[in-house]
């Protein structure tokens, strides 16, 4: 019974309008159709990607779990006895992000299958599913750098203290003493007791 995997070619139409019109004409035909397709993970057959076991765990899922099938060694898969209508195919491959594919199985033109990626609405000429991107599940640990140390809370603390210890007195020295006095009085008159106006006073005394 196993038919040779034939990729059903669909007519290249401007996708959306046509898809909707075909969606409206799905008669209640009980005869099943076959959807044949292929999953292609590019990096895998080029250099093996170091993950030979991975492909064996790729699942192809029809309509959110109604049917589940697996890939043959060449990446082909098929769903048999599928009623005419619109279906959704999802590919579950760890490490890759696949867009679900909308597949219209037409009862009027038996064997004609149209497919489109739902994520970006790109229609497929053949039912060849490729990942949109690879998925990296882990953060990349950045190599040690002085910057990361400086950026850490403790680094910031140290930096701040250094600024206070070395820069503040310098700033105070450069300030015109009269101007500072005026500023201090101004602050006092505002009556906002804050660290900011205590600090220069203390610094001034110590210098």
């Amino acid at each position, binding site marked *: *019974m*196993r038919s040779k995997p034939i990729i059903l070619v669909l007519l290249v139409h401007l996708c959306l309008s046509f898809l909707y019109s075909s*969606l*409206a004409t*799905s008669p*209640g035909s009980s005869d099943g159709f*076959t959807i044949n397709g292929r999953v292609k993970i590019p990096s895998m057959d080029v250099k093996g990607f170091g993950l*030979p*076991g991975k*492909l*064996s*765990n790729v*699942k192809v*899922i029809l*309509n*959110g*779990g*109604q*049917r*589940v*099938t*697996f*890939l*043959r*060694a060449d990446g082909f898969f*098929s769903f*048999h*006895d599928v*009623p005419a*209508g*619109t*279906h*959704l195919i*999802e590919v*579950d491959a*760890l*490490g890759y*992000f696949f*867009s*679900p594919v*909308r597949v219209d199985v037409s009862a009027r033109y038996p064997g004609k299958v149209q497919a489109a990626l*739902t*994520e970006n609405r790109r229609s497929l000429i053949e039912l060849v599913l490729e990942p949109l991107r690879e*998925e*990296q*599940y*882990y*953060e*990349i*640990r950045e*190599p*040690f750098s002085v910057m990361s140390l400086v950026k850490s809370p*403790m680094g910031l603390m*140290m930096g701040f203290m250094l600024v206070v*210890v070395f820069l503040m007195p310098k700033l105070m020295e450069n300030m015109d003493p009269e101007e500072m006095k005026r500023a201090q009085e101004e602050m006092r008159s505002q009556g906002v007791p*804050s660290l*900011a106006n205590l600090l220069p006073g203390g610094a001034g005394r110590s210098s």
Partner: protein
Amino acid sequence: MGMQMAIRVFLPLLLLLASAEHSFSLYEDQVGLMDWHQQYMGKVKHAVFHTQKTGRKRVVVSTEENVIASLDLRHGEIFWRHVLGTNDSVDGIDIALGKYVITLSSEGSVLRAWNLPDGKMVWESFLQGSKPSKSLLSVLINLKVDKDNVILVFSKGCLHALSSIDGEVLWEKDFSAESIEVQQIIQPSGSDRIYAVGFVGSSQFNAYEIDAKNGELLKHKSAAFPDGFYGEVLLVSSDMLVSLDATRSSLVTINFQNEEINFGKTYISDLVEESSSNAVILPSKLSGIFAIKVDTFSVFIRVTTEGKLEVVDKINNAAAVSDALSFSEGQQAFAIVEHVDGKILLTVKLNHDWNGDLLKESIVMDHQRGLVHMVFINTYIRTDRSHGFRALIVMEDHSLLLLQQGAIVWSREESLASIVDVTTSELPVEKKGVSVAKVEQNLFEWLNGHILKLKGTLMLASLEDIATIQGMRLKSFEKSKMTRDHNGFRKLLIVLTRAGKLYALHTGDGRVVWSLLLSSLRKSGSCENPTGLGVYQWQVPHHHALDENPSILVVGRCGPNWDAPGVLSFVDAYIGKELDSLDLTHSVTQVIPLPFTDSVEQHLHLIIDADHHAHLYPRTSEAIGIFQNEFSNVYWYSVDADNGIIKGHDLKINCIGVADEYCFDSRDLWSIVFPSESEKIIETVTRKLNEVVHTQAKVIDGQDVMYKYISKNLLFVATVAPKASGEFRMVTPEESWLVVYLIDTVTGRILHRMTHHGSQGPVRAVFSENWVVYHYFNLRAHRYEMSVIEIYDQSRADNKDVLKLVFGKHNLTSPISLYSRPEVITKSQSYFFTHSVKTITVTSTAKGITSKQLLIGTVGDQVLALDKRYLDPRRSVNPTQAEKEEGVIPLTDSLPIIPQSYVTHALKVEGLRGIVTVPAKLESTTLAFAYGVDLFFTRMAPSRTYDSLTEDFSYALLLITIVALIAAIFVTWVLSERKELQEKWR
């Protein structure tokens, strides 16, 4: 002013920083620190050994969870495993050509071949047939056609012969026209003929002789047996079948290979004296011998060469029999496993010589494993060139064990693949007497560890050091201690499995602390088909009674129907002992944990039966006393999805006609009837009972206050067009709709109703605080969507004085009346979502302060954490400055899937069915447990761990900083002293 300004500038910056990073993300070396992952398969149905060739010895199994797996025979580890679809159950497995695993599944319509070493699928064939029938699979090893094994499959009324190299159909023979129910496909060894035998009606026996090479029908024989047949036929020798007659009082032997079909009849009472008429033939594949079960006995009957039957042995204990196994020189052996006083007795016998035991071993077996359900045997050559036998046994608790040389080589707790319900229990408090120092590492080791870690961060560590660091982190002794910890990370997960076994798993490392096969959930005379329904916290000792052990309530039911009587079990959560069990006289349809406890901290539970009576547990007068006070405040609802009715109930009086003061009659308060022609209920969700909400007020735009409408009595209901509720996606958008409701379950008032035109189920939803998030399929866009509804209380909308609210002067108890319609407003928004979803849940924390994340179980069996801020109805394309400061994310049409926010990272929870979240004591942290065929546990912090140091915090770096600072102080002090002295001298 400046300060405020600074905060104004700084806060958004901080938020920006926080939002730029994914709140759940993991470095690869952190795997296994906070999480654990366990792989299971489920209860084994079939097993095939593959040990002939040199190399790795394995056993291939298929299970009730639709898993096929190849296991290492030495250690029981999984080499490879495939989880088939939910309705793709395996009918048979076999090995062909010595390198392919053949599986027949989906009621005999899918035949697949898997490569034995690595589990890759080689080919897949779809078998068509017209009528449902038994599904039989056999690989004809003896019959070689061009070095090819022929695979015979009988399914859907049609016999197929396929090539095992590529799955091509060699020939087909359709029996669907002949109205025969084929019972067996027989291939006598050494011949290239096959026989299909079966019944037509109840008394006509038919045998077809078919050429195995081309499927040609050679002969068709038929004979009637006037007494009729019962059950199935069993092949006992190459030319003889055995069956029961219609009255089940006699055995019928059928000789089908002669010219004529001969029947022989033997009364069971002639063979076994004290027999009743309930005999059953035990399915087995032996030759010359078979077993029947009469009452509690297993009777072994031999077929003599003259075709007579004679009893060889009678075993009084529950026993399991393996299939026959051929070993040297055409000898065949089989195994019997029986229970003899607390031990199991494994006997391997020769087929033709009952008394010649090849092996007799008795093995001590944990009685928590129950009875032996299945046994598979395999042979190996001992060092002295004699034959040894190993047996793979499946126990009542679904566990799988390998027995060899009188010992259990390995065991697997396969029951954990079928978890029904989960609850948690705290661990015991650390006792004062136990010295902490003994358990903790000493200071030097601790410091040494941290210095190593520092070396790691500074990239100074050698490879060896890195390995030690990793090992140290993974084996952290802290996390697997058997005591309660400060942060509430260590708990017991109490899980009930379909086998009726209760397990306590430690959250630290996932090990089984104790397990208990519940006697109330075991098959017995009064309880034929027990099923576990749920586990509840029964007794949670409060702080003043810490020396008491908490206990767990397990609710079950005797049989699959709603009106079957219930069973209760009470289990000690620390030691796993059954404290008590009750066989109820009433059924169980709903268990309602009430928010009241009695003086010994037992939680009151109300059990609703099929007749709408409510039964109070515990059955004590004290409980009645407490309950009487709250009598008028107890409301509940029931959902009848088949008839589309939701009803609200409350309690009336004690049951009439029953002298039981713990039984109460209920009264229907309200009912909502959904029009059956346009709406069908497919999902109902409420809030979790124990959810904590921190604040009712939500500050919007910095000034405005909105009050969340928070009620424990809100029910989310989703209905779809009846046409769209059946077969998936077989409707046009015009004739499909999804209607969602928010219903108050006390008053029955519909607070909100919304229709999504052109959408359909399945709907997965989660309800938390004042919002619902639900996932459904949009037929127009042909994509999945997720929507959020938030519900706010308008009646207090004018009370906007934040200060009053802060100081508690605000009147939060504004009058609530049944008669006035609550003034609520709802906000809603929808987004596309890429994947199909199996389950959704939400994180929960101790105080409910930490922001929430949705945990989405995707169709790929991964768990994705998605920040609730992505599902916020206030999202707009261009959020205002104020909204941005608040953390409102600009609107996008679809929800982002960030790979780093998969909490399961590079793992899968195969066959994912549910996710449970439990708050830790630490407010920032929530514990998440995902279960399916696999188990996965992790600890997550939805807004990062703001209240504790992260695991990779470097204490050594802190120490060094402090030391450096102190040194700097001293140096500067000395310097300044010297400078001062110099100044003074000047």
